[in-house]
């Protein structure tokens, strides 16, 4: 009797609290107590996807039905899975869209919790970090000329209309940020300024993904899109609190903030909220390899976004020169 090979997801953590077993995975938490907790406790060392339910029951002297029932319940809660070999089955674009959305919610957590936001809202960020934040956002948005153009030029037939439209609609968004920066710096200085290595890393990662795999690129790009303010109440309020704090502690940033808001409005007008959903609906069913690739790129995009914020936080603290003017034959 096999009945599948259960495995506890490796990103799940199990904690013991007052006789209960608490399993945390992504944004969910499952608590077991009593006999179910005792059974799971016994099962834990064997939930590696290598041992079948039947073999597990035999090893632990349990009824297979009981083990299977618990495994199915935990699987439905998302903390456990049944290992399957890649049998060539495919996932529809719509299914992928849901899976991607769930993962993005989890992967974006470190972005929303990043200490840079608090530093700016509370006024403890330095002048370099605040101006650096505006410059790096400008460089990142200006990077559309690279990654969106590469994405359009290397698009698959299904993806081309989406990627072409995206580039055409967004290539000049960097100018919105440039306008804000012009309140503090001359245009030639802004145009010559160099991004941080961490911002370069984000733009280059987007570009490399765009050249390699249209769908994975856009899956990654969608994660970035999810961080944009769509005007939805709760997120909109958080953004307003952020700008209010920034304006209070750094009054000279008013025109920079206006440019951030102008960009938000420009994005909202484009109605890009459901573009990824449309793309997912238009692509042929995805192989297991394609799913893994697109999710790996998305996860890595979240890590690059965290790096982007880290760069502003740590680099401008350690090397406060702003703007980052390029080298000349006399500057070094």
């Amino acid at each position: 009797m096999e009945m599948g090979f259960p495995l506890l997801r490796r990103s799940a953590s199990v904690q013991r609290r007052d006789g209960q077993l608490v399993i945390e995975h992504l944004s969910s938490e499952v608590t077991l107590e009593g006999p179910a907790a005792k059974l799971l406790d016994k099962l834990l060392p064997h939930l590696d996807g290598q041992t079948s339910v039947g073999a597990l029951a035999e090893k632990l002297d349990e009824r297979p039905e009981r083990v299977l029932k618990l495994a199915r319940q935990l699987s439905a809660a998302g903390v456990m899975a049944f290992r399957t070999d890649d049998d060539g089955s495919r996932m529809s674009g719509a299914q992928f869209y849901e899976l991607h959305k769930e993962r993005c919610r989890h992967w974006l957590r470190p972005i929303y919790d990043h200490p840079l936001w608090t530093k700016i809202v509370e006024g403890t960020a330095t002048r370099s970090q605040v101006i650096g934040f505006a410059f790096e956002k400008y460089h990142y948005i200006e990077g559309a000329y690279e990654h969106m153009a590469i994405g359009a030029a290397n698009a698959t037939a299904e993806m081309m209309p989406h990627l072409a439209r995206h580039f055409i609609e967004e290539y000049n968004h960097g100018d919105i940020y440039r306008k804000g920066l012009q309140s503090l710096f001359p245009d030639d200085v802004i145009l010559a300024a160099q991004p941080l290595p961490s911002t370069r890393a984000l733009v280059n990662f987007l570009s490399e993904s765009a050249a390699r795999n249209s769908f994975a690129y856009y899956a990654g790009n969608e994660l970035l899109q999810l961080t944009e303010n769509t005007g939805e109440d709760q997120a909109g309020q958080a953004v307003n609190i952020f700008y209010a704090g920034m304006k209070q502690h750094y009054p000279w940033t008013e025109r920079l903030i206006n440019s951030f808001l102008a960009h938000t409005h420009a994005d909202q007008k484009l109605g890009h909220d459901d573009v990824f959903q449309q793309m997912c609906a238009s692509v042929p069913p995805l192989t297991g390899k394609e799913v893994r690739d697109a999710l790996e790129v998305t996860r890595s995009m979240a890590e690059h976004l965290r790096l982007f914020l880290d760069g502003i936080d740590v680099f401008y603290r350690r090397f406060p020169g702003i703007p980052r003017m390029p080298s000349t034959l006399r500057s070094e």
Partner: protein
Amino acid sequence: MLIQKEYGLRRVYETTPAENGAKALRLSDQVVELGPREFDLYDRLTAWLPTQEPQDVFCERIGLDAGKLASLARKLSEARLLYRLDELPASITGLELHQEFSRILPSWLAEAFSHPFWERMISGQGSKRMFSGWLIELYHYTRNANRHMPLSCAHTREKPLKLLRAKHYAEEWNHYHYFTKALKALGYPDETVTSSVPLPMTLALSNFMRQAAREDILAYSICSAVLEGTTTDRQTFNPYYEKCAEHYGLPREAIRPIYAHLELDVQYQHSDLFHEILEKVPTLTGARAGRVLEYGHQLAEHIWLWTDEIEKYYGDEANPVPRRPFDPQLD
């Protein structure tokens, strides 16, 4: 006279306190000491120089008239903290650029390796886990040479330069094996290492090299030269490995392949490659030379941020070592 159109800033690599409230500013070629009043003026002037604020408004704000501001800028220029924009050369020979590079390189390397990670590791405040993590990232970086070295050949038009770059590639392409050997001795089998996922900054380094390779072979070559510059001085790298071995109980088998790799680099004289390349460049514009230097400096900055990420990731006991690829079933 508009000071903002007349002067550019020289890069200060480090500012440290000196006696009686003075500050010591380290440039690539000298240390300039400024008293408290002079430093304050210098600080204000350098913050203002690239801004939109009109000169008269700035003068009023800091309480200097235009003549005194001009005199301050002139003195700072004489002290080599500023330079005159009209003195920028329109062109330069390849060998002159190499001279510049050789003069600046120690400052870039000092900046690249100024991260507290190194002191932490050498003083015994690091861990075997961090050493291993750093080595895993070095493995990925070295293996990723295959993503940028051949690309630099593909984007080079001049035959003598692409020949040199191709030879360099032929000598280096499989050097990642030294790191798999060292990692095996630390308890990480080949398949675990090869299937692992690099940190974003490790990937960023090779993506930056790919960017350079596509833009300008000299920009690529200076980045390569900065990296080679990190491996030429035994006095610098040996104590790091010896101290780590001592503090974290590393087996000799984990260090030996790294020394073998460094020795091979010295044997190949890869640090001289940039000289060989620039010898073949009779002249280049000042603007291009500036862009090439910018690439070299940014590579040093990449190393600093790379180190920062290595320390953060591998310093957190909750993170898996090595990093595993995403798996929809397991994750």
